[in-house]
Structure formats: C-alpha cells, structure tokens
C-alpha cells in the first residue's frame, strides 16, 4: 500500500512537474509573443512606396489656360462636376465661369486646406480668380497630379490613413460586416467562433470565419499564410496581447491600412486609402455610400468580388452590404435603395503610366536615396513633370513615326524615336518619351541612346568663333573643299550634304544652311581645343576627342545630354542641370531635400545673344524652315537640325520662349534611315511645340549689341527695301560691315523701323 501510495505521489509529482514546465514554457512563449507584438506594432512602419507628383498648374490672370483646358485639367485631377457646396473635389462650370471646391493638398512649401475658388477663363487664358470671400486672388495652384509610384520591392502599395481620415461610416461599416462584437471582445471572440461553427455545420462547408478584426490584422501583419492549429493558437494569443496593449482605435485604423483590397499586376492594393484611389480615383473622404459599401464588401474576397472582372458578383456584394448597413440603421434605407440602383462607379486610376519619365526621376533620386527607402519609406516626390507636354510629345512622335514607317521602303523595320521637353531657363525636364511604346518599361532612348549628334554640334563651333571677337554673323567664311591628313595618316575630305560648294558665305547663312565645308574651315581657324572647351562649358561632361570630325558632330550624346547643351543656348549663356525632382518630403510631409535651381555661367551673354539670333534664322531661312508652317503664327523659334553620317540619326534641338525640346529619330540597330534632321525629327519637334502654349523666343538684347541688315547670300550691309534677301542679324555695336554699294543703309534713327521690319519678316 505504502509503495503504491508513494508511486502515485511520484506520478502526480511528475505530472505536476510536467504541467509546471509546460506552464513555464507557455509563459515564456506568451511573454515572447507579447514583446514581438509590442515591438513590431509600436514602431510599425507601413511599407509605402515613394509617390511621384507632377508640377501643379498655376492659375493667374493671363495664364494661358483656357476654359476647356481648365476643365480638362480638373478632370485629370478627378474633380467631379456637381454642387461644390457638397464638399471638396467638386466643381461647377457655366461657360467660362468655374466654381471650385479645392481639396486639401500638400505642396512642397505648404499644406493647403480645402476651400472655394471661383475662376473666370476665356478661350485661351485665365481672366480672373476670386477666393471664398469674393476677394481677388492673385494666384492659385491646382492639386499636383499623382503620376505614379516608385515600385515597391514586395509589391505592397498603400496610402496610409490617419485616424482623422477615416469616415465614420467606414468604421462602423467594417465592424458591422467583419466583426460585430469588435468593441466588446478582447481580441478573440468565443461567441463569434461558436456562431461561425454553427453556421458552418449547418451549411456543411466553411461559410463564415470566426476571426475578429484583431486576429485578421495579426494574421496579415505578423504571420505567414499557413492554416495550422499552431498558427491559429499563436494568432489568438497575439490578438489577446495586442488588445491588452493598444486601444481599439489603434487596432481598427491599423486594420483599415493593412487590409488587402485587390491586385494591379505586380502591385498589391492595401488599405482603404489606396483602395479608394484604385477603384474610384478619388480620396476616401469623397466616396458616396455605395462606393464605400463596395470597398467594405471587397474585404471578404478581393479577387472573387473584383468589380473590374466580376461586376455582377461585386454589385450583389455591394447591395448586400448596403442592406446590412440599412438594417443596422447606419444609413437611411431609402438612400441604401437608391445607392443599390446606381452603377458601381469605377474609374481608371489617376494619371497615365509614364515609365520613361519615372525612370529619370528614379535615377535622379538614386544619387541621394537608397532603393529600399524609395520602395517603402512613404516619401512624396515632387517633380517638374508636365502631363500636357508629355501627351503632346507622345502624340507627335507616334504620329510621325507611323507616317515615316509607312513611307519608308525598309520593310519590317520600325523607326524609333525619343523626345525630351524642358523649361529652358531652369533645365526642368517636363516630359520624356523613351520610344514609341510609351506605356512599356524598356530601353529608354531619351536617356540611354548615345548617338552621333551630327550638325547639332555646329552652334558650339560658331559660339567659339563669336567668343573670339574676331567673327560676327556677317563675317564671310569660305565654303570650299578641304582635305585633312589625320593623325593615323588617312585623308579626311568632308562634303556638304547637298554636294555643292557655296564659296564665300556670311557666317549666319553657313550655320542656317548647315554648310559642312564652311564649318570645318571656321572650326579649324578657331581651333579644336577652344571648341572642346566651349562644349564642356555648355555642359558636355567628358572632353571630346580633338579630331577634326568633331566639327561635324561625330561626338556621341544622349538626347538628355543634348538638352543640357541647348539649355545653355536657350538660357542666355547660363547652364542649368536638367532637373526632374524639385523636392522630397517624408511620410509626414516634412521636407527632406530640395533640389533648387542652380545655374552657372557657361558663355558670355553677348556672344550667346548673337548665336541665338543666328539660330532663329535656321527656322526662318535655313534647314529648319519646315517648322514654321507647323507652328502658330507669330512664333519665334531657334534651333538646329542634325543628321549623322549616311542619315543614321535624325535630330532636331530647338527652343521657344517657353519650351526647349530635343528629338531623335533612328533605328535601334543603327541602320540608314534616309532621313535628314529636317525630314525626321523636325516635324516631331514642331508638332510637340505647336500643341503647347508657348511664348515666342525673345531674348533680351545686351546693350553692346545692335541689329543690322545684311544680305543673306552675300553678307553685305543693306536695307530690306533694297534687297529682298535681307535678314536682320545681331552684331556688336559699331561693327564695320562692308556695304552693298547700290543700297547703303539709311543712317541713324531708323533702328526701330528695322526692328519692326525684322519682326515682320519672322512673324509672317
């Protein structure tokens, strides 16, 4: 007996010991989970990829934004026509009058609260702006368009909501549909489990889950997707610990940000903030009850109820949620019925995808940010992107490449092209087209196609000549055959594109008509090292090889590098680095970094002015004159055609007062196109510029420079009433010009007349 008693005691002891050990292990495990919950949840960072915004459109009296342009812009920003008194995001238009309820917007330099604005616009421009109080508003900017996001590593995309951003109906609606006892339970809901069990038993399959919102959050946030008893237990314990440490409000808001609501290719749509933008292209605060009900309904099965793929299922689900909301008296039952009769209201997400531009943004950002931060740290990137310029450049390139392909005898090969549009005075890149397939990621020709620039190099040669003060636009230079013995012993004998020889021609004409022989002679007289210096000052990074063929543009550049060089021409001799990112804000809207306009002196303003005036002759009298028929009357443009050897590359680079654009057209495999710069790239350039509202190029004349009339053919000073071939050129004051004896220039006082006449000649 005694033996068996002690045996029993021993067994009991062992059991007690085992239970104690189990309890200890369990306690350690719970404490561990507790720590994990606290650590992870307290310092929680949603993975939010950097969002990229376009330049906001500034409205002011005189801005060239007509009434129709304004409406188009409002639609692009997903403002809806309606009663603006109802809330932000709505406008009302009557003729040229707009009444707008602007949204709350974060700009680089301020956070603007919602407010009413009235705008009066004419056919071509804004006439008047007034604020809510009826007072004149000198300037008002629209929301910056969301262009896209820098794609996340794990594919998770979201817009994080703060508690204040969550509409009341969303809170109560989600609780009602997903977890009715959320406000009562402590993370796990035994009644819910029993109810789900009962429902599943009756149905004979799983129709209900017993998980609380807290458990769903734990599952998504901390755990993997496997369905095991062990994982279920962990989930329950973590849910209990989460509830012990955090408020219901914290948990609910985290749930609303975490929940998965759909899939857009590689991109997973998380949270109601992004869900609202993804399905309805507007902020959560602007959703009506039907739209909100659809989002709430999606939680149950985003792919099963995908409204874009299974509209009927989605509609039935939405209407069921509406019914439940009405039954719970969260919404009015007649409003629910009305909403149930409405269409789903889906809209394509805002902004078209512009991978070529985002590519430039990503490269600029990579200098300062780690890839992981761009993918996950919730940065807001404010760029110089202009959707209007992008659309114009894409349209022009697509149209002309198709036309040129159709006209080409090369079967089966497709011409490619690239366009970059920039603001000349700042170097701000406003549009990038990397090829004819604009929506596709891939070879970005605008940034990576490095090709010989041909005659695009010539302005640098003429600038170097002007800088010596020994040449001006009227100086005669010799267009005559030349043979050079190169370093390797070979003979170089360049020719004009036309295979003609022009003899003595004024510099202005040699540049306008892109004469090779005259340019080579001029360049050799000035000196190759000087020309290389000039190119580097203009912004070429690597020093070019000092080979005479440099003078005809054997140097290779990408379109972006050409933009850099030509910005210096367009900007009065001041160099500005091409810029796409204006500023980066962190997830709280605090500025992290701004990239301010930086200019450097590249060339003397007086030499640049003389050159720029010669470049306007390219579009009026020279190889670029085809542009003028496509440009609006009165437009003054300066630029240069470029054609590489055997017409493998067709270029045009040029600018007006508002835009600089560089266009390249050619084949990817570098075969002969048969297209000069004027035949291939120029029409693309001209149509891009023509569809943008642009001021004429009007550089401020330096005080030491004056206008003189010369014969375009002979360079002799003349008068327009005497010589039909007269062109106005800019030369240093007091320059002695040989005159045309049969029509000497009228002395003094006639300068303004000359200017007016010159104006007429270019503004025809």
């Amino acid at each position, binding site marked *: 007996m005694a033996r068996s008693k002690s045996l029993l005691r021993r067994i009991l002891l062992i059991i007690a010991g085992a239970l104690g050990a189990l309890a200890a292990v369990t306690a350690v495990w719970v404490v561990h989970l507790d720590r994990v919950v606290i650590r992870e949840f307290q310092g929680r960072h949603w993975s939010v990829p950097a969002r990229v915004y376009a330049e906001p459109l500034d409205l002011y009296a*005189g801005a060239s934004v007509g009434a129709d342009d304004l409406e188009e812009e409002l639609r692009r920003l997903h403002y809806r026509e309606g009663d603006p008194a109802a809330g932000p995001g709505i406008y009302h238009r009557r003729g040229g009058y707009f009444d707008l309820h602007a949204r709350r917007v974060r700009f680089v*330099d*301020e956070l603007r609260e919602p407010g009413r604005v009235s705008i009066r616009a004419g056919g071509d421009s804004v006439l008047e702006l007034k604020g809510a109080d009826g007072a004149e508003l000198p300037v008002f900017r629209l929301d910056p368009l969301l262009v896209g996001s820098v794609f996340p590593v794990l594919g998770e995309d979201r817009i994080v909501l703060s508690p204040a951003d969550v509409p009341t109906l969303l809170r109560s609606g989600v609780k009602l549909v997903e977890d009715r006892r959320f406000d009562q339970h402590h993370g796990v809901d035994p009644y819910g489990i029993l109810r789900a069990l009962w429902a599943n038993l009756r149905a004979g399959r799983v129709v209900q889950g017993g998980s609380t919102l807290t458990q769903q959050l734990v599952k998504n946030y901390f755990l993997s997707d496997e369905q095991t008893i062990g994982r279920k237990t962990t989930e329950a314990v973590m849910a209990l610990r989460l509830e012990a440490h955090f408020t219901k409000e914290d948990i609910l808001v985290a749930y609303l940000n975490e929940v998965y609501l759909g899939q857009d290719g590689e991109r997973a749509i998380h949270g109601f903030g992004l869900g609202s933008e993804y399905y309805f292209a507007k902020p959560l605060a602007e959703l009506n009850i039907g739209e909100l009900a659809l989002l709430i309904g999606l939680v149950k099965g985003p792919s099963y109820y995908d409204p874009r793929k299974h509209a009927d299922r989605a509609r039935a689900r939405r209407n069921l949620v509406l019914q439940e909301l009405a039954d719970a008296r969260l919404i009015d039952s007649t409003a629910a019925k009305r909403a149930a009769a409405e269409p789903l209201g889906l809209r394509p997400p805002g902004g078209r995808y512009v991978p070529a531009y985002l590519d430039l943004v990503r490269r600029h950002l990579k200098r300062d940010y780690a890839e992981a931060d761009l993918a996950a740290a919730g940065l807001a990137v404010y760029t110089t992107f202009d959707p209007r310029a992008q659309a114009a450049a894409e349209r022009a390139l697509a149209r002309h490449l198709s036309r040129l392909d159709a006209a080409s005898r090369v079967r089966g090969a497709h011409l490619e092209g690239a366009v970059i549009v920039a603001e000349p005075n*700042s170097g701000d890149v406003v549009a990038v087209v990397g090829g004819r397939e604009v929506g596709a990621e891939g070879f970005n020709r605008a940034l990576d196609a490095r090709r010989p620039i041909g005659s695009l190099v010539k302005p640098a040669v003429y600038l170097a000549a002007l800088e010596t003060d020994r040449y001006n636009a009227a100086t005669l230079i010799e267009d005559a055959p030349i043979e050079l013995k190169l370093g390797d012993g070979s003979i170089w004998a360049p020719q004009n594109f036309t295979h003609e020889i022009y003899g003595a021609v004024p510099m202005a004409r040699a540049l306008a008509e892109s004469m090779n022989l005259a340019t080579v002679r001029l360049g050799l007289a000035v000196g190759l090292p000087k020309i290389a210096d000039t190119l580097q000052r203009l912004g070429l990074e690597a020093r070019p090889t000092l080979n005479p063929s440099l003078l005809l543009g054997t140097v290779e550049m990408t379109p972006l590098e050409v933009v850099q060089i030509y910005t210096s021409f367009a900007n009065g001799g001041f160099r500005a680095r091409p810029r796409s990112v*204006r500023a980066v804000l962190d997830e709280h809207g605090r500025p992290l970094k701004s990239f301010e306009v930086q200019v450097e002196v590249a060339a003397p303003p007086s030499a640049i002015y003389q050159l720029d005036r010669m470049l306007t002759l390219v579009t009026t009298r020279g190889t670029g004159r085809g542009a003028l028929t496509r440009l609006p009357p009165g437009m003054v443009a300066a630029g240069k055609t470029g054609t590489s050897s055997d017409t493998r590359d067709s270029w045009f680079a040029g600018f007006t*007062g*508002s835009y600089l654009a560089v266009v390249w057209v050619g084949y990817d495999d570098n075969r002969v196109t048969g297209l000069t710069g004027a035949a291939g790239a120029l029409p693309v350039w001209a149509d891009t510029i023509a569809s943008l509202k642009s001021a004429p190029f009007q550089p*401020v004349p330096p005080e030491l420079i004056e206008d003189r009339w010369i014969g375009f053919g002979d360079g002799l000073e003349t008068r327009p009433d005497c010589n039909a071939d007269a062109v106005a050129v*800019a030369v240093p004051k007091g320059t002695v010009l040989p005159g045309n004896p049969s029509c000497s220039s009228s002395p003094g006082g006639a300068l303004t007349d000359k200017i007016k006449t010159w104006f007429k000649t270019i503004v025809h």
Partner: protein
Amino acid sequence: MAAVLLGGCTILRAPSSSSSPPSPPSPSLPAPPMQLPSQPAPYQAAPPQQPTAHENHLSPATRSLVTQARAQVAHGDLPAASSTLERAMRIETNNPLLWIELGRLRLAESNAHQAEVCGRKALALASGDHDAQTQAGRLLADALRAQGRNQQAREVETQPFMN
C-alpha cells in the same frame, strides 16, 4: 537673418510698414528702395531687339508670390521661400527682379556663389532697365564681396549703370 534679407530686398515696398521704421540696410547688403508705381502695370516682355529704356515690373501674381516668399523668410523657412520664388520665375521667366530676389535669398543662405550667378543673370536680363541694372549690380557686388573678391566688386560698382 530675415531682417537682413528684407532689408536687402527692395523689389516690393512693404505694404504697411509705417508703424515700424524700416531696418537700416546692413552694410554688407546695401540696397536703397526701388520705387514701384502703386498700381503696377502687368509685366510686358519687352519686344526683342529694343535697346531703348524700359522698366521691369512684377505682375500681380508674381508680386503676391514675392510677398509670400518674404513671409516665409521671416518665419525662417528659407527652402519654402526658394520654392515660392521659383514658382514666380515659372510665371515670369525673364524678369530680372525675380532673379535679384532669388540672389538675395541665396546670400541669406550664405550661398554667395549662386547669389553671384543670380546677379549676373539678372544683369543680363536687366539690359535697358536702369533701376533693375542698379539693383542687379548691387547684388552682384555684394555676392562678390561675400567671396572676398573685393576688387571685382568695386569694378561692378564703377559701372555706368550703378549711379
């Protein structure tokens, strides 16, 4: 710093500064006020090739942005002021007054090199506008002095447009 910048920036007259006398110009940033008409005409870009005298003005839009930039400077938010001025420059790309304003801001940020380039750019754009030339010349001289290039600063100050 705000006072220094405001003292040096004289494109706008303070709208109602009668209660507080304007701070005396700092010796390093001398710039007497440029008079603007009380009802400025909208800025008209001068027709090209017109070397005759003309005056640059700020339009109501850029004027309000310059005012806003100064308020941002007064709050110590120089980056915001910079971005506001750049916004104004996108509206009026060739107005030398805006480059002068930006150059003064760069000086306040102790970025004398960029202030110098702004001064040169403003000077080029101010051709034919004596008042703007004078202001641009002062900015340029100040920026050169801030880099210790006193001789060059004096050369700028002896230019004909400086009186």
